[in-house]
């Protein structure tokens, strides 16, 4: 897209987003989260998150520790921020995998049709028939816990929706005149799929990625509750919320509050941003979950 002063659809979408103050704020929040996650991963931000001090356990919020301390006297705020790292990893890797599977399968099924389509439709109908939570839990259970498996399980269980959408889009685009025109000038299948149709459905992938991201973050919490989350000792929101649900009754509300609040802000920002993204990229899709 070496477009000089021309507005491509993406640039156009960006300007639309920029005008939408709420969405722009959300984008800034999301960028802030990504930056925070990155800084935490690099050890620049809150390097002391794992620092224990057993004399300081369960200290309530104070000017010193904004969100108090946990059972081992660790800074809850620091841990919550490091939770961003985990959530973003789960979101990016899990959703990334699902998007790759979903869009490639969808493209192939929608474009080629016939037996290929039948097979892929069969595969995703089958997967879709099994309740998501059972499939996801079963998958993580069988593969064992841990961050890697978690991402993998989320990835290979959550591609169905996107696949279905992309397939439908490909079936529609396959019959569009610009694709026929491409055939007429002799484009190969590969070229038609990746150079011609893909850019035209890319906004759906982007929107779905964004939605999947939210889903993955929430899945992490549920799987942690089921005991299928990331490695213990890792500061993830899921584990923090799960542990904090017990601690709540001893009056330690800050653990739950910090993790839920950070998650709430991220998910809300993502939700609002996704909606604005939809409006900017494809007004017809606005407000759809």
């Amino acid at each position, binding site marked *: 897209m070496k477009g000089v002063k021309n507005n491509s659809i993406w640039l156009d979408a960006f300007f639309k987003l920029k005008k939408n103050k*709420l969405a722009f704020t959300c984008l800034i929040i999301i960028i802030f989260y990504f930056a925070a996650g990155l800084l935490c991963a690099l050890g620049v931000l809150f390097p002391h998150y794992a620092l224990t001090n057993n004399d300081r356990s369960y200290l309530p919020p104070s000017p010193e520790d904004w969100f108090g301390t946990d059972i081992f006297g660790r800074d809850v705020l620091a841990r919550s921020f490091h939770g961003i790292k985990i959530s973003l990893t789960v979101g990016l890797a899990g959703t990334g995998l699902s998007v790759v599977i979903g869009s490639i399968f969808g493209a192939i099924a929608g474009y080629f049709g016939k037996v290929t389509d039948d097979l892929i439709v*069969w*595969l995703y*109908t*089958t*997967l879709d*028939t*099994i*309740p998501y*939570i*059972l*499939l996801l*839990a*079963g*998958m993580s*259970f*069988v*593969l064992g816990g841990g961050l890697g498996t978690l991402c993998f399980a989320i990835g290979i269980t959550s591609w169905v929706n996107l696949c279905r959408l992309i397939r439908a889009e490909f079936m529609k685009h396959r019959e569009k005149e610009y694709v026929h025109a491409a055939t007429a000038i002799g484009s190969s299948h590969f070229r038609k799929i990746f150079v011609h149709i893909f850019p035209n459905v890319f906004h759906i992938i982007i929107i779905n990625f964004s939605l999947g991201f939210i889903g993955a973050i*929430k899945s992490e*919490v549920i799987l942690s*509750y*089921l*005991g*299928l989350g990331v490695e213990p000792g890792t500061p993830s929101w899921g584990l923090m*919320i799960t542990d904090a*649900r017990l601690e*709540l009754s001893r009056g330690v509300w800050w653990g*739950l509050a910090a993790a*839920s609040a950070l*998650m*709430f802000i991220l*998910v*809300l920002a993502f*939700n*609002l941003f996704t*909606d604005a993204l939809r409006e900017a990229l494809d007004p017809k899709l*606005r*407000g*759809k*979950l």
Partner: protein
Amino acid sequence: MLKYVLKRLLYMIPILLGVTLITFLLFNVVGGDPALQAAGRYATPEQVQLVKAELGLDRGLPAQYLFFVKQIVSFDFGRSWSTKQTISKMIMDGVGASLSLTIPAFFLTVFLSISIALLIAYFRGTFVDRAIFVICLAAISLSSLVYILYMQYYFSFQLGLFPISGWSPDWLERWEYLTLPIFIFVSISLGGSVIFYRTIFMDEIFQDYVRTARAKGLSHTAVLFKHILRNALIPIITIVVIEMPALILGSLLLESYFGIPGLGGMIFQALQSADFPVIKAMTFISAFLYMIFQLISDVLYVVVDPKVQLK
């Protein structure tokens, strides 16, 4: 119509086979040796061998798969490894409890969210629309655990409006225990639901026939409640029907917190104790129900939508 239903039923066979294949692969092949789980804690190797024979696990994988399919066809899933209860009985016991939580909650949610979505549709593009939309998004961004913990503590304990947890096998008496969980269920799912239905209405609102109806002299409300609602009901009914089989899965968190002996809790325990027969059975049953309801939904679609005609 009959032929259509028949065709759909036939189509279910490969899907069902797919479901059995996935569950089988997941739990019998990848998931380690089930006999070790089933034999109990201090089982000697001979005992494990014995259990294997009983569960049909000493045979080759294809034979095991056939055994599993046979179990399904005869609807006999055997006994739970953990509780030693027959799975069919466990499911029969739990299904009523799950449904008495989820059905009222689900329909209340549908009813409320359609009402609110209509309201938003009426005020579309205004501040009310935007505000409700943002509130709904905020509501779905909050972890459901937070709703449960807080609402149970506040409404049951602090205010004492509801029992903290409990259950009655009696159909009339159990509502006392169910009111709060239902209320929480509705609160958790309302946001997403409203947004969803809002989209459906919004899709309809810009259709040409709406303009025609207005040109006829119908009022805003009449157009909304008669023309738009009637059209929107088609996707709504079909979607509602598709969502219904999930109701038997109950609600994992709510059941655990409110002592409701439903299938959600059962699945939760089965997952925690690697009770594969239970998980397999539930996976299969919900997949089966899902397909049946999918079919019902498609048939309903044909019935309620005059546009669709079967050839």
